[in-house]
């Protein structure tokens, strides 16, 4: 039986007239069990791989190995399918004419791997059609409460309009989670990030085709280790207050604010997908009407809900004080993750400005990113930034853009921009 905890890190003291309360809430899950085996419904997995013409050669061979490795990780009894995507989506497995998912066992695993071995690279790229087929396949297995897909592409979405892709994403939202990967340098990070963000998944670059199998295996193993099908973070805030934002800040930065689903007048739910034994940090900011010095009040109840059941709760408090030594302290966790979120934004804005030819903005933004990475001790980000800019002074964020930069290095910096380092508590 999975158990959740919610621990709050904040400075609850506000100065006289202060209104904004910030808190980091660490939600941890243990005893999650395995996907489809925790009694809350079946699990279903779809492997979606790009088989467009550009994949021919090394890439298609690597995809065959990777898809096969992923299938090896799917637990017996889990519903599954394999979709081959080009300018349209094909159900590569099962091919029994019923166009429906099957449960994993020794036979179906062997059949699926044989189907994967028969992939041929041809056609264009229309990822919306891949998502639409996956949505339909998942919908046909009502017993599956935990639905997850891996999507791999190597190119940009050139055979359908952005609107068509958006419509497919919206139709898939809430129906399944999707971890997305791009291989090589011909795909667009922003486009694939749009899919991953909407479908509560990750986005990452696979620079070399031969790294694909290990990555697929890891994604599928992680998904199989998620025995809690679907959890939501709920935020209650008092009458007359305003929730400024709700943001996941670890392991990656994801703004959840716009995913708000009303539970009641004072409570909203933010879907977080499936959970294994892991912990994730959330930054919650609430604006309150100021109270008199000495007053105390609750600024937010941050809860974990499985369906309608609240299984954990953390309290975010506000206490007005005229003791400067109390009110001026910034909680280290809040400070750290505020910096990490700004770091992600600075990297993405800087790379976008660079791509648009706006060298001045790119230099300022990436300089700020270098400074923030230094301040928050994010050495991985510093290493990646170093491949894009010459750092003159990390402390002040003084940088120069490098003259020639590898496209893959830029993409690696972009996809990794949302990854955060944990605060030392």
């Amino acid at each position, binding site marked *: 039986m999975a158990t959740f905890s919610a621990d709050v890190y904040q400075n609850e003291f506000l100065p006289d007239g202060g209104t904004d309360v910030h808190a980091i809430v660490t939600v941890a899950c243990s005893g999650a069990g395995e996907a489809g085996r925790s009694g809350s419904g079946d699990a279903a997995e779809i492997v979606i791989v790009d088989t467009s013409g550009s994949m021919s050669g090394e890439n298609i061979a690597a995809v065959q190995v990777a898809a096969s490795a992923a299938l090896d990780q799917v637990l017996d009894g889990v519903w599954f399918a394999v979709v081959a995507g080009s300018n349209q989506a094909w159900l590569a497995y099962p091919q029994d004419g019923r166009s429906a998912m099957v449960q994993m066992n020794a036979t179906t695993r062997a059949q699926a791997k044989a189907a994967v071995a028969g992939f041929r690279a041809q056609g264009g790229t229309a990822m919306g059609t891949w998502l639409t087929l996956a949505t339909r396949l998942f919908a046909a297995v009502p017993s599956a409460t935990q639905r997850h897909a891996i999507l791999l592409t190597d190119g940009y979405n050139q055979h359908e309009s952005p609107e068509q892709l958006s419509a497919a994403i919206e139709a898939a939202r809430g129906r399944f989670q999707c971890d997305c990967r791009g291989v090589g340098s011909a795909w667009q990070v922003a486009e694939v990030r749009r899919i991953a963000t909407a479908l509560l998944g990750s986005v990452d670059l696979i620079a070399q085709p031969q790294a694909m199998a290990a990555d697929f295996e890891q994604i599928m193993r992680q998904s199989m280790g998620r025995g809690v099908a679907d959890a939501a973070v709920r935020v209650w805030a*008092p*009458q007359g207050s305003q929730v400024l934002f709700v943001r996941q800040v670890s392991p990656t930065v994801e703004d959840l604010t716009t995913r708000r689903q009303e539970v009641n007048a*004072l409570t909203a739910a933010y879907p977080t997908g499936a959970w294994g034994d892991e912990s994730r940090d959330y930054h919650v900011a609430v604006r309150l009407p100021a109270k008199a010095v000495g007053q*105390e009040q*609750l*600024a937010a109840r941050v809860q974990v809900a499985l369906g309608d059941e609240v299984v954990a709760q953390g*309290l975010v408090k506000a206490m007005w*004080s005229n*003791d400067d030594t*109390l009110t001026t302290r910034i909680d280290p966790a809040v400070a750290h993750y505020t910096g990490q979120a700004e770091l992600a934004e600075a990297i993405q804005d800087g790379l976008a400005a660079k791509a648009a030819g706006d060298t001045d903005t790119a230099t300022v933004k990436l300089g700020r990113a270098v400074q923030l990475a230094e301040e928050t001790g994010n050495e991985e980000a510093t290493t990646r930034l170093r491949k894009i800019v010459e750092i003159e002074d990390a402390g002040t964020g003084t940088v120069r853009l490098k003259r020639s930069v590898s496209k893959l290095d830029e993409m690696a910096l972009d996809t990794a921009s949302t990854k955060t380092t944990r605060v030392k508590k």
Partner: protein
Amino acid sequence: MTSLSEDEAVAPRVADQAGPARAAGAALLCPSCQSPVASSERFCEACGADLGPQPAAVAADAPVAEAPAPAAPQAAAAACHECGGEVAADGYCTQCGAAAANARHHFTEQPAPWVAAVCDRGVRHVRNEDAVALAAGPHAGGHAVLVVCDGVSSSTDSDVASLAAARAARDLLAGGPRIGNTDSVGTRVAASTKALVLAADAANDAVVAATTAGPGNPASCTFVAAVIDGKELTVGWVGDSRAYWLPESGAPRLLTVDDSFAAEQIANGVPRADAESGPQAHAITRWLGTDAPDHTPRTVSLDLDGPGWLLVCSDGLWNYCSEAQDLAGVVAAQTRSAGSEPLALAGALVDWANARGGQDNITVALARVGAGPPHSTAGTTRPIAVSSPEPVPSREEVQTDGNILS
């Protein structure tokens, strides 16, 4: 946890005084934090909130003063005191988020019309780590016990510890044997002094019992207890909570000598105002608790032969008026505006300290000795003894400081 005194003279009274919510026998919840509490508990083990009044009788055969109004809301689910909404099990309103009223932040006691106290969180502190416990016979000038403990703010759970300590000491002193009027002065002083030593033991035991196991700063607090028995006043203390005697006529007096770094400096000739505003002005050298080197109280006895106020307080008050003369002036001024009803006057003094910044928790306990403000009866108050039971740390030599018991 509370380690109540099992003294026969006290224990039955505790049961008698139990409020209806306790007697019901149903599962009880702390009105402040909603943690489960036992009916025998006087305050919440989780948050230290007062679970109800525990006025102690002075003796088994003495008439018991009217019980004061409950200092804490009853355990039944309460409506929010701000918006009337429902208060959730987590202690906050489900609508406006206001914290449920915390009885620990401000409470009063008045076991008899002539003895009262107000204990308040002050302005700057988040918790009220001060505590007070009183007992009194119904007749002014009879028997009264006033105990003030000030939790050391650097230690955890010191709000729980201070309340446990104050009540344990009060119970012991209230239940102790009457000192016969026919006894000699020497016998009476010896008996009073012994009772104060035992009271400090009981208070120390209560602090130790309230201390959470494990690492961290063990709970600790100061201790000052004043016992009036007819014309006899005996005071015992550990730390820097104080007792003052403010007679109608004659010089007001600070009866205690702080166990503090500041007091050591004063003893070495540093002016009081300088010593008490220095960087370590509030560092105490003795306290109650697991890590207390020695908790034997120093004691002083006085013969009260004129009317006046006995004032027992924490540093939350005396920080703003340390000198006895200054405090007497403040009391006189507050008496003019608030009157001489003890509870009203104690409240006015707390308000006065809060108006000056309320930098610390504030506790003021008062006993009106003699009749209401009369004309000068020129009573001479005579110090009759100062005792300091063994073992005595060498620094306690300051006890004979002439400016205390001149």
